[in-house]
């Protein structure tokens, strides 16, 4: 017993108390900024360098739903107009908001409808489905429940059974072999229910967007409520996205 208390004392106070304003290392690659400058004519270096074709020109814009945050475009840009900041609040309820241009200052999350907030505002239980995820997103979602991020204090938890869940969180590009299971799992969640896509692979297929082994029909047939970009998304991106969406303090 004494030893357990000693361990508890050793634990100290590791919780991130202010998840809204915590800061990340300066090298962390979060929201990119694009300077309002003209590109040298004919320069397509950023496009050529991008492994997932997340960049388009005229004007330069980056799709955070496809971006794997690898800094290649930042490195090759001759005018240094692309720069990854350590801003981690990049979740959104709309796919369109994930396109970053030179006008983007922040990524907005529109708060959820009155109905969703009244249903899930004080308690949200989620069932996670790994559908081809590489275990990167899964590790970060697991980290949400550790002593540092402690998602449970906001009334948001991951549960074992879809029957106990209010929605699903999908990670991975949805492989052929998981397409059916994903559907069955979602069907097992009682109404009303939400769908959250965590990570670049889930949002767009990411690096696996052209893989012949994926089957993304499910996403076309259902409304997606929240997009959480990142490769993998930082736990703070997930927490802040959900808190903004559910309009929690």
């Amino acid at each position, binding site marked *: 017993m004494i*030893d*357990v208390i*000693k*361990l508890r004392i*050793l*634990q100290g106070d*590791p919780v991130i108390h202010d998840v809204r304003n915590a800061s*990340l*290392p300066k*090298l*962390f*690659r979060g929201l990119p900024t694009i300077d309002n400058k003209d590109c040298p004519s004919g320069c397509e270096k950023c496009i050529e*360098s*991008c*492994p*997932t074709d997340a960049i388009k020109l005229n004007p330069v814009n980056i799709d955070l739903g496809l971006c*794997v*945050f*690898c*800094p*290649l475009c930042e490195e090759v840009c001759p005018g240094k107009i692309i720069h990854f900041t350590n801003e981690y609040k990049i979740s959104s309820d709309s796919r369109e908001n994930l396109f970053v241009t030179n006008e983007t200052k922040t990524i907005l999350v529109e708060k959820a409808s009155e109905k969703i907030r009244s249903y899930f505002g004080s308690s949200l239980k989620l069932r*996670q*489905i*790994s*559908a*081809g*995820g*590489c*275990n*990167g*997103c*899964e*590790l970060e*979602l*697991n*980290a949400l429940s*550790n*002593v*540092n991020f402690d998602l449970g204090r906001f009334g948001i938890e991951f549960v*074992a059974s879809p029957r106990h869940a209010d929605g699903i969180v999908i990670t*991975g*590009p949805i*492989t*052929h*072999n*998981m397409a059916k*299971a994903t559907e069955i*799992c979602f069907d097992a969640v009682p109404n009303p229910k939400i769908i959250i896509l965590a990570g670049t*692979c889930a949002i767009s297929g*990411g*690096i*696996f967007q*052209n*893989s*012949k*082994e*994926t089957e993304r029909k499910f996403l076309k047939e259902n409304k997606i409520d929240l997009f959480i970009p990142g*490769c*993998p998304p*930082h736990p703070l991106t997930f927490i802040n996205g959900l808190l903004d969406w559910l309009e929690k303090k």
Partner: protein
Amino acid sequence: MISLQVQNNQQFRINEIPFLNKNDFIDSVSEGLSNGFSMIGLFPIDKNQPYKIISLLADPDSSSIHITGGEFPKDKLEYESFATQYLQTNYFECELAENYGYTPIDHPWLRPVRKQNIILGNKPYQFYKLEGDEVHEVAVGPIHAGVIEPGHFRFQCHGELVYHLEINLGYQHRGVETMMLNAKKNQRLILAESITGDTVIGHTYAHCNVVEGLTDTQISLRAQVSRSVAEELERVAMHLSGLGGVANDIGLAIVSSSYGRLRTLVINSLALLCGSRFGRGLFIYGGVRFDFNDENVNQIISNLEIVRKDVSAINKFLFSSTGALTRFENTGIVSGDLAQQIGLVGMSGRASGIETDTRIHYPYGAYRYFPVSLITLPSGDVFARARLRALEIDESLRFIFEQMENLSGGEIKTDVGATNPSSGVISIVEGWRGEIVHIAFTDNRGEIMQYKIKDPSFNNWYGLNLALRRTAISDFPLCNKSFDLSYSGHDL
């Protein structure tokens, strides 16, 4: 045996490989296997010529890899299975059968690896079935009761006791190997990072080694040391995570959360170095992208000082708790003999007394100059697998401190040229789970025409199968966590 002998990361020409006729090939490979070599690959060099395959056998005593080629009659891709005598080859043969239509005659257990419909001709897979009074079957998955990857487990039980477990995988199959061939050059590293998100460093390390081998690139000592430090950080982080998982499975919440807290410190240290908590973006061909400086070195060292101090207190508590030891000891045993036969690798193998560690037996990068110690335990149970991880954390921390306090100067990037044509490179890296093998071959234009990946999980899932025999089904989560295997690394 007749073979081309190469070393880890050494470039060779494809035409140096001896291609034997089918019978000589079988004899030669059998001879190698009877010498105790371990198989790390069995596949064709060129997908368009599936009848010409190579076998790769690794010999830890001479630190060399034996490559033997075999040419089969085009219309008759069948042979007497090696697995009837050498169990370790069984899964490689399943993979060969699934991907290229070979028939291993008398194979003890031909089963699908990633694609259900190929071997079975669209028939559903028939699980082995136990019959009798009080016998029952438990099916779990693909979706499990937690935030983890998918896989299907089928238990044949008699009361609480498991008599047989079958593990059916492939749900995570994204086609990584095929994509590696068709990928643009700048996509391959990202693909390598996404093989398994928990072993980003291990897989990118092996991938970079392969590409650097094919392009005759020598990287600087500082870059090599940075890579090794990153690899050891990953090892420490995942071992902490695994120990936390094992503690969680026996209900020791305080221990589990303590390990979790320390893991956060370690992966945040990786983020201080490269911006990603998993080391994404750190590796580039020819070196590393981000350098150590006084600021991040000091921060990382102070983080790791806390880890070193606290982890010893937590280990002491866990490994002296009678409750924990009762659950750990004699649970999920894989004996040394069995482990040798089925070819367990990495930490699960070392926990069954197999004395192989890629960093020592096939040294690469900084490990050639700054060796690590080999750690093994004999008992092969959950205790050994957990305890081994605790000991490896200590050794990795020693290595990291030693390197970070004596960083050599120099550049961190070297220019990389074009890949040589008609060549091949085999790279083995000791990821935190065990040996990661990446193999690449180029065609006569220097384009990559074959890319094979073997995650340690490919070998070790079979170990989990057998560990469960005569174990209570309620101990499954504990056994599973003690092996801590990858689904995506297996499924590719």
